[in-house]
């Protein structure tokens, strides 16, 4: 049976509480956003499928909002993430400083080939801005991250951010394994996601003898 998409990307939103992660997600999901609550699955954030170079890319975006202060929980989210969006709030110096901690966390727990991106959110509040654009750019350059200033409120750069990240992941996958004839589907894109992920899905919690 034909799949509705060619790629399935799992993305993760990370950053301090209150930086507007969920707002970014809500803004991006827009029409597809289904604010219904089902007791066993929680708030149902419908994912969005975008078009990239003629391919249908389904974006599954996970959000840790509300759980940032539970220490080990975010590490559970990293598993299988192909792209991570690091978000800080330009009106909060602290949320910017903590980006380094989050990066350390990602390095420790996420797959090493995960595509990362830095977003400076709430740029619609120039009078309350505490973090200059240059500071964000500098940090992004230091860690070789893509960088954009966004506003979940106005929608500025939100679309661009997710597209840019998806493009990066796709380029990485296509570059890693040129698959002639383009095998389609989630399975193929996941298979291309690197050995480590494959190993994880097979025997998740087993110890490996070195």
């Amino acid at each position, binding site marked *: 049976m034909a799949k509705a998409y060619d790629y399935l990307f799992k993305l993760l939103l990370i950053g301090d509480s209150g930086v507007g992660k969920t707002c970014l997600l809500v803004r991006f999901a827009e029409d597809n956003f289904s*604010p219904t609550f089902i007791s066993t699955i929680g708030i149902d954030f419908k994912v969005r499928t975008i078009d990239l170079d003629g391919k249908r890319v389904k974006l599954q975006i996970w959000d840790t909002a*509300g759980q940032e202060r539970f220490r080990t929980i975010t*590490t559970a989210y990293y598993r299988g993430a192909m792209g991570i969006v690091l978000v800080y709030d330009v009106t909060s110096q602290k949320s910017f400083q903590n980006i380094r901690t989050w990066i350390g966390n990602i390095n420790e727990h996420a797959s090493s080939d995960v595509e990362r991106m830095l977003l400076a959110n709430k740029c619609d509040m120039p009078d309350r801005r505490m973090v200059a654009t240059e500071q964000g750019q500098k940090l992004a350059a230091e860690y070789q991250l893509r960088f954009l200033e966004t506003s979940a409120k106005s929608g500025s750069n939100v679309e661009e951010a997710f597209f840019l990240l998806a493009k990066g992941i796709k380029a990485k996958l296509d570059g890693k394994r040129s698959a002639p004839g383009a095998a389609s589907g989630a399975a193929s894109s996941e298979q291309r996601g690197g050995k480590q992920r494959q190993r994880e899905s097979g025997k*998740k919690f087993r110890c490996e003898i070195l």
Partner: protein
Amino acid sequence: MSLSASSRSKFYVDLEDSPPTEIVEEGYAVYTMKMKKQFVSATGSLHRQLEQPPEDRACIFMAGSLEAIVEGLAPPDHLEDKVDCLHMNILLTTYPAFASTEELLQIVFDKLRNGSSRVNSERLRAALLVTLNAWLAEPFQELLRLPPEFRELRLLAEGCEAAAAAAETSETAGRLDLLARLARRRLETFGAAAAAEASTAEAEAAGCGGQGGRRHWRRVEWDEIDDLQVAEQLTRLDARLFESVRLHECLGSQWGRHRRSGCSPSVDATVQQFNRVCSLVASQALQPGLQPEDRAQLLNRWIHIAQYLRERRSFSSLCAIVCTLNLQCLRRLSRVWRRVPSASRDLLAELSQFANAGENFQAPRRAMHWEGTGKALSRQLSVPGGVGGIGSHRTASSLSLSESSGTVPYLGTFLTDLEGLHSAFPERVHGGLINFDKRRREYDILARLRLYQVTCRQYQYCEDARFEHWLSTIELLSDEQQQLLSLEIQPERRFVSTV
């Protein structure tokens, strides 16, 4: 139209094909008129009348001014109820998101005195009296319990006294007088409880002051405590904290605002305990000077403690332990894990589903819903050989859910859902009216938490001094120390699979 079978012969029809009508009263309130669900026979013939009597229509309060929300407590005229119960529950649970206690009380007393031009004043008065009574009882009284002054409670008492003096009928005056006396009694008990708490805290602070020799690991103590004891004590601590979570502090508008951190102390306390358990497990397993066998034994014990927690439906600490055991700094210690019995490793793999973040934490949510509501238990009793939900295959574990105990959920997913609602819906709609529909959605989640809070009281574990002593003497390692020690224990940094 969607048909869903509720039994073999009856169907309920959700009349979603009839579009809800919006009724807007400019600057006051917005309602949605909906047809109530209809009963139809198995043949599908639908007894639906075109002209619905008021009983079959539901007028749903969507948004309004604070005044309209208060007036919304009066039920529609065709109902005999004294108060719109759901409306009252939503209001008393979520009002801190849109009004201060003082503002709300002001309007309540204004309406009690002056009645209303929009709704039947008599019915409104009756509804307000019921609401004030509920406010002074469990579970809503927590909102009036703000030490040290209990200013809001005092305001309520004074308001009732003033309203009683001005009441038109002696019956209303009598009821208000009773409410005032109830409020005064609460003032006394809350004050006494706060004083007792303060003196206990003082005594504890004095007792813990001079702790020398904390660097010595109390291995003997740890060995003296058995796994079951640890699980029960962790459950006791979690249950106590969860039970005292003030639900409104979980709302997206309260929790998770970085500029206002510290405004959700009861949620903070739950998070701190969760983090403490994480640190505890990691610090113990990584403590310096142990042989791989000792470390393996420690890990093995924590896996069994996790299993006991699961049996006790104590999901918060279970999640903390399982997440920690899967942390990279522990997972990479292959030489240690090799010495952990394979049955225990299988058990951990199974328990790890309780901390699986995939599909928006779907697996843990299902498990919590399934096991936390006692469904698993009834299934276990009726179907030989198993419990549904997570881990349908029984590997190393033989699950015996304890029948009499409660449930402590992991709070994090609830907070994420509430944060999601908060981001998805505006606070104000229709030119500044309070979005009450958003509060209704939030209340759906908070009401489930409240149910769990009630089940929490079923735990009957007594405080264990030895456990408390052991807990207070454990030295917790920082994240950095954990990383360093992990590399010291097993130098080469080669990643193995992680959770």
